[in-house]
């Protein structure tokens, strides 16, 4: 498969390239098979598809958390499964897992400042950055409370806020909008948009097809460990004669997604 042609034309090298990537779980289940993919720099790429289709595996491979069974992966010119390359990539890739990974006994503020140190943010900037993130993610009143007392949505916000401690070149976001209210989802998409504006690339798996359709430069539909469609949202609509991405999804996966309200529209009750 080729690069999404309508993605912003960039003279820079691609953010990521996958060639013949297959990932087989111990025990023989194939999570991804024969993935060929080029992700252009300064773009937002949406990963959509049913549960268990391979979206998370694809992100974990890009993040270097998993090694491919066969095939080669390059992210920012580096091989995420090589130890030496990982040292460089930990600096440049922000990977936010679908599972919220926080320590319930730390406060929000403590968590942010710990990760500022772990990412080598200088002491003086750290305080400012943490305050900005607290503000951006609406954690102001909760920053000094232990994470264990947070609601699910607040935990998700803090989980995501940690991805902004430094300016990564590549963001890998695994279902970041899960459990967030409309305002929270909007923060996510605004963050991703600003990230792209700064020349960064973001890969986002999501079931929020309306948002993916309006925010992503390219959408990849992953079903059963294979890429079944790839292109700019408009291209996909045209190709499948669909009114929206949900319709494309239904054609490709055989079942309709349950689409939540798009983040930039007011919630409507039917």
């Amino acid at each position, binding site marked *: 498969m080729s690069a999404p042609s309508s993605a912003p034309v960039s003279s820079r090298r691609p953010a990521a390239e996958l060639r013949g990537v297959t990932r087989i779980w111990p025990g023989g289940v194939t999570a991804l098979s024969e993935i060929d993919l080029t992700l252009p720099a300064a773009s937002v790429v949406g990963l959509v598809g049913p549960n268990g289709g391979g979206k998370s595996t694809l992100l974990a491979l890009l993040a270097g958390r998993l090694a491919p069974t066969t095939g080669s992966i390059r992210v920012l010119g580096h091989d995420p499964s090589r130890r030496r390359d990982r040292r460089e990539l930990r600096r440049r890739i922000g990977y936010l897992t679908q599972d919220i*990974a926080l320590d*319930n*006994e730390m406060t929000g503020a403590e968590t942010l400042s*710990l990760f500022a140190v772990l990412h080598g943010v200088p002491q003086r900037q750290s305080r400012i950055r943490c305050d900005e993130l607290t503000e951006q993610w609406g954690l102001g009143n909760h920053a000094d409370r232990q994470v264990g007392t947070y609601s699910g949505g607040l935990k998700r916000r803090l989980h995501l806020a940690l991805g902004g401690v430094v300016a990564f070149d590549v963001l890998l976001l695994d279902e970041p909008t899960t459990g967030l209210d409309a305002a929270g989802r909007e923060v996510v998409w605004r963050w991703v948009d600003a990230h792209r504006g700064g020349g960064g690339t973001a890969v986002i798996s999501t079931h929020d097809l309306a948002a993916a359709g309006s925010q992503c430069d390219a959408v990849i539909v992953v079903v059963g460990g294979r890429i079944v469609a790839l292109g700019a949202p408009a291209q996909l609509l045209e190709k499948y004669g669909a009114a929206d991405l949900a319709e494309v999804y239904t054609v490709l996966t055989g079942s309709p997604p349950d689409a939540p309200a798009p983040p930039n529209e007011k919630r409507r009750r039917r």
Partner: protein
Amino acid sequence: MSAQRVAWAIALRTWRNTFRRPVVLAFSFVQPLIWMTFFGFLFQRYPLELFDPGISYTTFLAPGVAAMTVLFGASQAGILYVRDYQSGFLTRMLGTPAGAGAQLAGKVGADVVRLLVQAVVVLGLGLVVGARFAPSAFALVTAFVGLALFGVAFGAISCSVALLAKAPESMGTFVHIVNMPMLFTSTALVPARQMPDWLQGVVANNPLTLTVNGLRGALLFGTVPRPEAVIALVGLAGILFWLAAALLRRAERTAA
């Protein structure tokens, strides 16, 4: 990227975690107190042929229980890693540019500092229940360095076990499998000459014996610990720390 800054931030986090569980912290004080008083009562009437007739069993026992406190505390160091592994927080910390060695140093360092404070408190309790010491400053500092190295060694083993097993149940098993034989084949509770001949080789080379003998000599007589013993503890702590750091670095990948 400053490794010291990382280690310090992790140490602060480790201490906070400890102090936010006051019951666990309290138990870690109660346990040595129970050992000291009960063993004291149990053995003080027995002719233990101690260093010289003027030394009470309580005096003999106090440094042993102080070292035991470090052993028991250090062997639980890995529990936080099991918890962090299960919450995904460990993998997340390892996914940052901060080195695994610096992160481990902060974690184990914080535990060892806390345990040394606890050891001092235990020795103070010993004084309260009747122990009498005649230390010298240099000897005592050297003995505490030995105690710290012992803590690093067992903190590192505990973290290694945690990183390999990744389950809280196996930490409990590990604590019992390692601590009890370590304790009863050492000079922490009774002098070596009370033990059978076939055990002497084990007792003499038990790291707890090396640690306790150094501490006891320094506290009771002001004798400086044997250099061989300190060197052995340096080697042991170094090797075990290195092993735990290697396992920690690896945990970023296997965790996914």
